[in-house]
């Protein structure tokens, strides 16, 4: 099984080299025949002596080289994730502006900056970006901060009061609306239109509501018990008697359900 397969490439080799061998007068005989004659092995197994003679032509692949093909190596390279600085030092940013995208915390959020859940540094105030070190805060960390003035420097002195901005405007306080408004639907040639019922008319009775229904508003249904004057007993942690009764009822119910379950099974059988 093994021998013919080994011999075939050798025969091919011989065919390729015969012209060259023929040209040399010293080796007039066929290569195969000479080799087989010199060898001590029987004619049928000429391989070991052959390999010795053809050493310069055989290919040897050592383990130090890659054993698998590298044909698709480049297609496995992922796309760039566009990380890095989005705003450079001194640039003006507004609140929420992304300053730096990174994997892991290469940079830490300093003054007026925050860190997102993928470690993105963003501005929490409008101002000018600063990249800085703060050895008193942490000896190794690099920080990104935002300052309000163009020529302000970071870090601030340790004992200086923090500089903050209010960024708020006074607005007259909105009056609290006591009554609730509700949605109603009206049907005409244009189709169904859902509109808001003014708070005043909300309690005037049944109205056409979404889903082609004349009914009360949802919140009115929710208040039904209140209207009827039904009150639930306020929960008292100390009332262990009631708690025991409820627990008993629950256990009874569970037992009942369990027994029903068992009966069904037996019925099936």
């Amino acid at each position, binding site marked *: 099984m093994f021998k013919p397969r080994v011999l075939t490439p050798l025969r091919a080799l011989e065919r390729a080299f015969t012209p060259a061998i023929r040209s040399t007068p010293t080796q007039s005989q066929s290569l195969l025949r000479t080799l087989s004659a010199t060898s001590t092995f029987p004619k049928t197994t000429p391989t070991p002596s052959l390999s010795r003679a053809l050493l310069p032509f055989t290919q040897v692949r050592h383990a130090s080289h890659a054993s698998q093909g590298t044909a698709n190596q480049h297609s496995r390279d992922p796309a760039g994730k566009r990380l890095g600085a989005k705003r450079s030092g001194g640039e003006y940013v507004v609140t929420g502006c992304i300053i730096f995208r990174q994997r892991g915390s290469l940079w830490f959020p300093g003054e007026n900056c925050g860190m997102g859940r993928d470690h993105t540094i963003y501005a929490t105030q409008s101002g000018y970006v600063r990249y800085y070190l703060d050895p008193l805060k942490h000896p190794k960390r690099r920080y990104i901060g935002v300052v309000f003035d163009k020529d302000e420097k970071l870090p601030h002195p340790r004992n200086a009061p923090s500089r903050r901005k209010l960024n708020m405007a006074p*607005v007259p*306080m909105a009056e609290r609306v006591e009554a609730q408004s509700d949605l109603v639907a009206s049907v005409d040639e244009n189709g169904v239109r859902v509109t808001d019922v003014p708070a005043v008319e909300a309690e005037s009775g049944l109205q056409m509501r979404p889903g082609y229904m004349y009914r009360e508003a949802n919140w009115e249904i929710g208040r039904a018990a209140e209207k009827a004057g039904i009150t639930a007993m306020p929960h008292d942690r100390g009332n262990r008697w009631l708690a025991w009764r409820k627990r008993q009822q629950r256990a009874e119910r569970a037992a009942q359900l369990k027994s029903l379950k068992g009966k069904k099974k037996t019925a099936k059988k």
Partner: protein
Amino acid sequence: MAHCERASKPLLQCLRNTYSRGVAGVQLQTRAFQSTASVREPEAETPSQPFHKAPDPSLVTSPRLERRLLRQGTTPIGSRRRRAALQDSENLPFEQLPYQCFQEARKILLADREEKLKEIEVMRQRLARQEALTDQESGGAKAKKSRVTAMQLHLERLKVLADINDPAVKRKFEDNEGDMSKPIYRFLADRKWREYRRKILVQRITQMNVVPDVLPHCDPVVDTKLYFGKRQVQAGEFVDAKLSTSAPKLDVQMFEGGEKLVTIAVVDPDVPNVENNNFDYKTHFLAVNVPISATSTKVDLAQLLEDSQVVLPWLPPVAQKGSPYHRLSLFIMEQKDSQPLDFAAFKAKENNRDTTLLRSLQSRYHLKAIGAHLFRTQWDDTTLEVMKEIGFDNANVELRRKRVEPLPYKRRNPSSFR
């Protein structure tokens, strides 16, 4: 184990009784330096009424009785486990406990105490001699001063070391019966405070940026507790506007001997200033020349004297609707050399709540922050009522965030995209 205990109990009891009877005359020693462990006489008379009618705070174990005691205003002593153990113990003083090893150890401790007392005597005499010397004799006023201070420190340390190993002292301190006029109890209280409460306080005032915002630096050395009515407020807690309408009470525990005169200030660094788009300071309370000591700790800000202490009376803190929370920081500042400040001059100068800065007060009057506390206020249901009560200007105005205009869209490096 239980069997063996049961079996040995009568024997032990018998032993105890004989022991106490035998040693009763010996154990009444006089203590030269201070009297710490007073021998408890076993109460002979039987209680006339049952225990559940008049529970003993040192023996009560059932939660119901404990709660009743707490409602009456007495705290149960020690842990429940200890009280349970005390219920069926003979409650013997340490001197009479029938444990040989314990008694041998006590002897060593007592010998050590005697040694320390002798050292204290020697140190006192040396200190007196040093103080009697003139400056030239001791080599300059500075050298003398440093020597005397070092000796005083050593003396204080010896006083603590004399009592620190006394089991009776430890027990008394744990039962909150320690006498704060004695150095050992002050030392123990200080250690306990520094273990937990001080750490929390320092963390709160630094994390909430009170320390660089109001004062540049603060190293608390006195324990400060703040009460609104009966409720104690933890450092940094939110307090309802209604609750803080009246001035709080303070419990300022000093851990050094002697009396100090302090300035107490409550400052809010978060007053919104819409015109300048930043925050202002407001002094809600300012009082000078308040005496505190290790034994008199209670300071009621409402009860301070109008004509010699209170510069700016209590102003109830309120936070406008929508504004960020207000930090109300309380600082206890030691006056220089505990000398009283000139009240009239102080009041004439620092009469404006809005312009008085604690930083400038500190440098102007040489104050030193020795204690701090903090609580916060924000808009709540009771704020509007309090605002109307104190005549707040912008009661019906709320603060809303200003819209942030986005940056104009700018194509970055357009030529490369073509």
